[in-house]
């Protein structure tokens, strides 16, 4: 058994990161406001302890756990298509998140599927041709807490996601420096985070070569024009537009070309969806073992962000709005129903920041005195829609059930 002392040590290191000159974090707790920020439907146990917490360089986030660090963004942070860095959610499996010195930071590139090997410093990365993409980073388990029946895991509500403008080098350009062998099938990624106990599997993920070579897949060193915040992967992380956050390795320290499927816990049995249950196009065939397959691209989804369920409004014109996104096909329409789904009207789409970005939308509601219901359904350019009922699965992934909120007008 590990000792209490080692526990405190690791916790201290985690909490201490990156703060003020003294290294002391400023954690502001506010239990009352945190309970109000929880998404309706998450397990009741969360209310008994949850607080808002302010990590260095961040605004208050819903602190689901500090070890590993899991902090959800409240609904108010989703009223713009770009999520500011200090409002971006935080998600780790492991608890030891080292502070990295950008001057000595290196990424090792190689593997048995590569012709050679090399090391890249942050400066090397910045000297390469730079590309930008605006892309949604959404945890695979976003909305897991809304699963009915509930499933075990980090019980996220609506806020384990964000959208930023990422800048970095293309992964394909990095791979070209070493050259891939024809028999390379996957590219594996490791980050600098590590477990407290050394027998816990390190968090390593892989991508199929085709996705690694996609021109939108980047190793990013900038987020919204600034260096990445520590808890979002400083100094460089993988950006895998369209795919869920599990592949977006933070604090990237190695890129390894493989000739055999990566066999770690975090590829199998973790992060799996039942084969055939979800309408996903992107497949990861070298990791497909019946009855399940790795989660890949995000399903089409939307979130009403202008109002909470049960919000009080004045009768008459009320602008209801939110965000929509998908796995990179792009949003075609967001439709809204005020009669429980019998009839639908197209919402007005806002600024288009690209097919991987949050797409804002809005709708003018003529609110009548009393209860007004609003449903939203996003449709992407390949005709996929949100679902009316949950496609339940053991890990609680891909929850894109249409919301149905009530506004109370007086």
């Amino acid at each position: 058994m590990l000792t209490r002392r080692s526990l405190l040590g690791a916790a201290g290191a985690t909490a201490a990161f990156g703060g003020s000159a003294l290294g002391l974090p400023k954690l502001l707790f506010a239990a009352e406001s945190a309970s109000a920020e929880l998404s309706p439907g998450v397990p009741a146990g969360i209310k008994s302890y949850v607080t808002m917490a302010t990590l260095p360089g961040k605004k208050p986030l819903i602190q689901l756990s500090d070890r590993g660090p899991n902090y959800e963004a409240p609904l108010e942070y989703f009223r713009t298509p770009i999520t500011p860095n200090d409002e971006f959610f935080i998600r780790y499996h492991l608890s030891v998140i080292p502070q990295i010195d950008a001057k000595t930071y290196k990424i090792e590139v190689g593997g048995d599927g590569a012709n050679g090997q090399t090391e890249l410093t942050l400066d090397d990365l910045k000297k390469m041709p730079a590309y930008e993409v605006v892309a949604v980073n959404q945890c695979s388990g976003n909305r897991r807490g809304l699963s009915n029946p509930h499933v075990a895991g980090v019980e996220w509500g609506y806020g384990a996601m964000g959208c930023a403008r990422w800048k970095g080098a293309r992964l394909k350009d990095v791979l070209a420096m070493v050259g891939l062998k024809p028999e390379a099938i996957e590219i594996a990624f490791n980050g600098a985070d590590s477990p407290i106990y050394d027998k816990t599997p390190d968090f390593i993920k892989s991508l199929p070569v085709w996705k690694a070579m996609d021109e939108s897949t980047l190793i990013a060193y900038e987020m919204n024009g600034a260096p990445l915040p520590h808890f979002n992967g400083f100094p460089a992380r993988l950006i895998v537009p369209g795919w869920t956050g599990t592949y977006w390795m933070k604090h990237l320290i190695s890129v390894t070309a493989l000739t055999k499927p990566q066999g770690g816990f975090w590829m199998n049995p973790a992060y799996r969806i039942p084969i055939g249950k979800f309408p996903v196009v992107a497949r990861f065939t070298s990791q497909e073992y019946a009855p399940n397959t790795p989660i890949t691209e995000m399903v089409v989804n939307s979130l009403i962000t202008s109002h909470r369920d049960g919000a009080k409004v004045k009768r008459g014109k009320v602008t209801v709005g939110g965000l929509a996104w998908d796995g990179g096909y792009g949003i075609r329409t967001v439709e809204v129903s005020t009669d429980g789904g019998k009839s639908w009207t197209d919402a007005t789409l806002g600024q288009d920041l690209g097919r991987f970005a949050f797409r804002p939308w809005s709708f003018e509601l003529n609110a009548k005195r009393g209860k007004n219901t609003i449903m939203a359904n996003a449709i992407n350019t390949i005709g996929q829609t949100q679902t009316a009922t949950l496609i339940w699965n053991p890990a609680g992934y891909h929850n894109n059930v249409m919301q149905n909120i009530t506004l109370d007008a007086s």
Partner: protein
Amino acid sequence: MRRFLCACVAMMIAVPALAQEQQIKLKAGPGLDKVEGNCGACHSLAYIEMNSPFLDHAGWQAEVTKMIKAMGAPIPDDDAKAIVEYLTKNYGT
């Protein structure tokens, strides 16, 4: 790893205020010490309250087994049994 832990312990001694841990007070009861000592060694005890109250005995057993088999947690058999009993009784359905 060991070197890392030593460094942390040294830091703790130097600046005790560093460990501003999330304050989680689990329900009192038989087995709580085993939960704090084993589960709390690697992760926040918030995971227990967060995952409640919807797991039954089999559900909590599966979680503890996962921690031992998949995550490598060095939990003695007797402790594991006490942990599952505690979680089922205090944080189960």
